[in-house]
């Protein structure tokens, strides 16, 4: 306030501040604009169009011709057995794969955290499965279970057990899909959880030991509470990724054998790009979006916490 009396015009500091604010804000918008435009055009606009398509009947062969059909696409789902089983498989796959990934990731994190010779190598080598292209992972697993010359079947034959192309066996194909999800993501959980564990001060464990706590109690009362935030993020994120995942199933079994591994994303892809039923595909994708919305809200809340 004192400056007001000294300066020639009482408002000039505020004018200068206002100018600075406007130019700063302008520059701020300008710099974020390219990203916003690209995301708006390639993600937000197609999403809104996709939601719109869900209420129309459209063929991929003639996408200009759209017929408004109201909620009839959603009605069609109720009587579509493949849709129901795809939805069930997606939920089951997500629940089983994410639980296994978390538990196995936690185990690996506990081992990686230990200060043993070679720990650095183990830590860096473990992420390899996570950076591989999905198609390469699928090729590896399909090779492993080839009849006659696939390593898994060679071992089974030596043990005198049944051999077959296991991706083609109902009842085995689905567990194999789970195994691939686990194989791919366990290291990622492990590294994130290990990092969270390492940030816990060693003094807390020493204090617990002095108070007579065993390793299990230390894990339960010191480690678990302090990795819960990272755990939540990992779980919510992978629920979303697994639920939406397309390539692992599409490239390995294509949804077979006999629809045993059909998930939402592969069924939608087939409806839209093989049956040309864009509207019906979009309406099922909208169902996926709605189901995932809850998890997204939780995730965004977690990230926005700081």
């Amino acid at each position, binding site marked *: 306030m004192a400056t007001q009396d000294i300066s020639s015009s009482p408002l000039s500091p505020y004018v200068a501040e206002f100018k600075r604010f406007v130019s700063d804000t302008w520059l701020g918008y300008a710099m974020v604009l390219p990203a916003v435009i690209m995301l708006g055009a390639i993600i937000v606009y197609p*999403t809104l169009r996709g939601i719109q398509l869900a209420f129309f009947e459209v063929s991929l062969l003639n996408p200009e011709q759209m017929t408004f059909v109201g909620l009839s696409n959603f009605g069609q789902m109720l009587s579509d057995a493949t849709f129901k089983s795809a939805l069930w498989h997606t939920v089951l796959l997500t629940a089983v794969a994410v639980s296994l990934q978390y538990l196995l990731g936690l185990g690996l994190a506990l081992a990686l955290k230990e200060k*043993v010779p070679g720990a650095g190598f183990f830590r860096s080598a473990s992420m390899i499965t996570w950076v591989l292209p999905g198609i*390469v992972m699928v090729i590896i697993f399909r090779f492993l279970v080839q009849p006659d010359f696939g390593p898994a079947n060679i071992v089974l034959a030596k043990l005198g057990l049944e051999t077959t192309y296991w991706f083609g066996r109902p009842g085995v194909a689905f567990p194999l899909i789970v195994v691939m999800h686990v194989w791919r993501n366990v290291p990622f959980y492990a590294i994130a959880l290990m*990092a969270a564990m390492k940030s816990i001060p060693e003094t807390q464990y020493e204090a617990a030991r002095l108070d007579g706590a065993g390793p299990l109690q230390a894990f339960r009362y010191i480690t678990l509470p302090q990795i819960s935030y990272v755990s939540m993020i990992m779980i919510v994120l992978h629920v979303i990724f697994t639920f939406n995942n397309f390539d692992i199933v599409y490239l390995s079994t294509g949804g077979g054998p006999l629809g045993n591994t059909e998930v939402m994303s592969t069924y939608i892809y087939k409806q839209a790009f093989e049956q040309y039923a864009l509207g019906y*595909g979009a309406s099922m994708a909208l169902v996926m979006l709605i189901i995932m919305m809850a998890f997204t809200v939780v995730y965004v809340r977690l990230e926005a916490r700081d």
Partner: protein
Amino acid sequence: MATDSSTHSSSDRSLIQRFDAWLSDDMSPRRLVGVYAVLSLYFAFLLLPVGYMLLVTFTSQEFLYSPQLIPSLGDLTVENYLTVLQTGAFQGYFVNSVVIAVSTTTLTLVVGTLAAYSLSRFEFPGRQSILLSFLATQMLPLVLILIPFFLLMFSLNLIDSYLGIVIAHSVGGIPLGTWLLKGYFDDIPTSLDEAAKMDGCSRLDILWRIIVPLSLPGIAVAGFYTFILSWNDYLLVSILSQTAATRTLPFGLQLFQSQNTVAWELLLTAATITIVPVVVLFAFVQSYIVEGLASGGMKGM
């Protein structure tokens, strides 16, 4: 420990002592064995499939199709690599992959750095919503976007062009890249910005001369994620690429398989070559990635 090593010769003792010093105080031999046992089990599960693929690619076709697990020395050969690397179409796909992944990474880093700087250092209405909506785009089901996305690219005449694929991949990488870079930018004290401003630096000078050099690890990690996102992508390329001119390696691997027959020795070799750039790049940035994950959340993810 001391009583153990006293029974050994002096050179042995120094080795054991060195090993001992390496271990932390509370690491008992029993615990050590336990840790190695657990790690071995995990790594057998995680690395054996990849390791076995690598082994098979260096063996003859006869061995691959035989019911044997372990090759003899006579089975070893580099013939598969020569065949794959001399396949013209494969070379073309490799070049496409490199061009598309490098362009995607460059575009994403430029757009992402600008956006991250803006979101980290500027105050403007809507800042927080932009940040959170970037995050939310990562959660949308790709199959929902895919249908209108295809129609959009078709009407923009971007089907079967490098540009179309680069834009599609960049859009996939920008939200994560921006979020990640913002995390690194936030860690740089704003007092540095203020000091530079005193010296007459503009906002863009500050970005280019202070923020970017100090966030090189973050830029490396963001660049790596974008690169593998583009390099590994199958779905978008399978939709946007109609001819061999724009086909990338993951989609191009079908070159070695037809409806009924798969040339496994060539397919596995081509798959191995496909992962080499990813693994090499990963080796360079893995320490930053592990470090970034330590701070939790999206930073380093």
